């Protein structure tokens, strides 16, 4: 080897690009935020989001660091199944389509997933649910902050801590000014950027590196990546699907979108968004399989996507990767910040501290929560304790336990609050045990199986029947 492999972009160019985009997003967020008059406007964009924006925000929010950094990571670690299996996370969006329609039908003026759990199952179930939601939200926020730092480090050599801080600051900034209206509007632009960027990258990659040579290299040197009977990859497959389902079904990110969409379009928006999302992890994952052919062996597996693209496409490619991944990160980070601060405002501030709060107080609290979440996430991101995939799959043990209580809670009046509570606690506990004893491949699957068994047994012996009208009763703010 004659020359050391080094970074694709000068640090100053990378930082300048991020700052330019950041200023643009913050200004746009401020511009859109001027229209916000009420808390409904700030938190749910006035409940009047049309199909095009709805579809774009569903897709863009789900194109996250997971898709742009973790999909290549899993392709690099688990081969073909890692890549294809990751794309099955689209099933979460597709299966949420009927649930979103049902949510809008049952709670036309509802706000959060926490509202539903409290009204449907009572406070006993609300507590484990809110703990699960906050653990997941923090896990995802930290993974996104980390992804920002990793991205800038992989492409420019900028210190991880500086890159992570800059990206967090920008996303908190424009969400703070614009609320969900800014989040959804920027998501639309970010979707266009992501699709164009991914298509251009794939086009150049296939043009420059032949499929035959990639296949030959993998067969010779990394045969397991092409093996369809790769045990760890097979174990990962349905675990990842259940993790994705749990993420979407429980998270207020998706519930707030279902509430923000205009009546009658939630089903179509999530269905089309899911179908459009499906091929993206295949494209982003595929580029990781070219790494050995190019002589790229990453320090950390989650850096492989940006490194390969930058190597193949040079500086232009590095700029494309930076813009695309930054857009993907921003579109998820802002959504999660907005939805989590809304959840805390509605479910904690409104329920426990100020049930009579007016619109201005709610908006002020929402903004304070946003800043607090940003600072807390920044603190948790500082040590960079795990790889992105490991961190995300840890939360899988929690979120998968909510799948069956939510699905049955939306359709089956006989599921009681006690059963739902027990299902979430038992599912999360055994999911966590399997995460540490067996591995991340089984955490979400174990959690959902246990939760399902509890729900089925609970239904068998249930004597209660829930009145759906109770979901429309207001109990605060």
């Amino acid at each position, binding site marked *: *080897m*004659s020359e*050391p*492999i*080094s*970074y694709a972009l000068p*640090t*100053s160019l990378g*930082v*300048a690009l991020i*700052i330019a985009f*950041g200023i643009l997003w913050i200004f746009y967020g401020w511009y859109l935020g001027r229209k916000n008059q009420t808390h409904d406007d700030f938190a749910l964009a006035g409940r009047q989001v049309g199909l095009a924006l709805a579809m774009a925000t569903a897709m863009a929010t789900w194109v996250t660091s997971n898709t742009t950094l973790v999909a290549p990571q899993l392709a*690099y*670690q*688990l*081969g073909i199944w890692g890549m294809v299996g990751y794309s099955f996370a689209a099933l979460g969006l597709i*299966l949420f389509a*009927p*649930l979103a329609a*049902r949510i809008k*039908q049952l709670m036309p003026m509802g706000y959060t997933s926490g509202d539903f759990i409290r009204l449907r199952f009572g406070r006993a179930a609300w507590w484990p649910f809110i703990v699960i939601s906050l653990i997941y939200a923090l896990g995802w926020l930290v993974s996104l902050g980390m992804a920002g730092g990793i991205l800038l480090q992989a492409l420019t*050599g*900028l*210190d991880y801590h*500086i890159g992570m801080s*800059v990206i967090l600051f920008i996303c908190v900034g424009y969400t703070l000014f614009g609320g969900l209206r800014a989040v959804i509007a920027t998501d639309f632009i970010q979707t266009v950027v992501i699709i164009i960027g991914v298509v251009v990258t794939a086009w150049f990659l296939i043009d420059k590196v032949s499929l035959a040579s990639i296949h030959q290299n*993998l067969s010779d*040197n*990394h*045969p*397991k990546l092409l093996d369809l*009977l*790769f*045990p*760890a990859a*097979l*174990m990962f*497959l*349905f*675990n990842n*699907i*259940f993790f994705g389902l749990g993420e979407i079904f429980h998270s207020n990110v998706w519930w707030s979108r279902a509430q923000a969409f205009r009546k009658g379009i939630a089903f179509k928006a999530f269905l089309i968004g899911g179908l459009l999302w499906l091929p993206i992890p295949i494209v982003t994952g595929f580029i990781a399989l070219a790494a*050995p052919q190019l*002589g790229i*062996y*990453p*320090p*950390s*597996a989650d850096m492989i996507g940006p*490194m390969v693209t930058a190597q193949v496409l040079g500086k232009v490619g590095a700029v494309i990767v930076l813009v695309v991944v930054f857009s993907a990160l921003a579109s998820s980070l802002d959504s999660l910040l907005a939805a989590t601060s809304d959840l805390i405002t509605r479910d904690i501030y409104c329920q426990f501290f100020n049930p009579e709060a007016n619109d201005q107080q709610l908006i002020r609290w929402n903004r304070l929560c946003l800043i607090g979440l940003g600072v807390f996430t920044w603190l948790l991101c500082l040590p960079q304790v795990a790889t992105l995939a490991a961190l995300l799959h840890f939360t899988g043990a929690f979120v998968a336990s909510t*799948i*069956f209580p939510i*699905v049955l809670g*939306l*359709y*089956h009046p006989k599921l009681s609050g006690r059963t739902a509570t027990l299902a979430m606690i038992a599912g999360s506990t055994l999911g966590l045990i399997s995460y540490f004893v067996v*591995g991340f491949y089984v955490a979400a*699957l174990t959690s959902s*199986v246990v939760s*399902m068994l509890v729900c089925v047994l609970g239904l068998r012996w249930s004597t209660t029947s829930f009145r759906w009208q109770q979901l429309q009763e207001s109990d605060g703010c």
Partner: protein
Amino acid sequence: MPNRARFIVQIILLFLITLHARPPAAHEAPPSVRAELPLLTAPAISREGYFTLQLQSLPTVPLVVEYSTDPQFTQVTAQYPWFADFSQMTLSGFPNGQHYFRLAQAGVDGSAPNQVGPVVMVRVQHYPLNLAIGLLCFGGAMFGLLVVMIVRGHWSRSRYE
């Protein structure tokens, strides 16, 4: 100057400071002098065929990791160039068996390495295939059940409404 404008200017200045941040030494030319190789470490076992090799100190010269299935390295099967000045490298896609690695200083213009480090071994032992296929089938059945539950719920509620 109004407070808001001052706040924005201060934030922009704060960002501009980051432009002067020093990246790790990757942009700097590596010293050409012969230096001591850092110590390479590896996990003893991997159940997934991927693992991370670690250096005990940051590299100061261009490095490669040499791979062989033979502890004596009678034949070097592959060479993996070390990326920049990171302290670890992740490798993947290895089949069952014992895999040997050693660090070498990258030779100039493709010539043979002039210095090699001690050998480390990673034993790859994948999970049993029966277990994996069992979990796959179980997961598939669970997923099918969930889909049926949602579709039935959606249709019956739509019809009822």
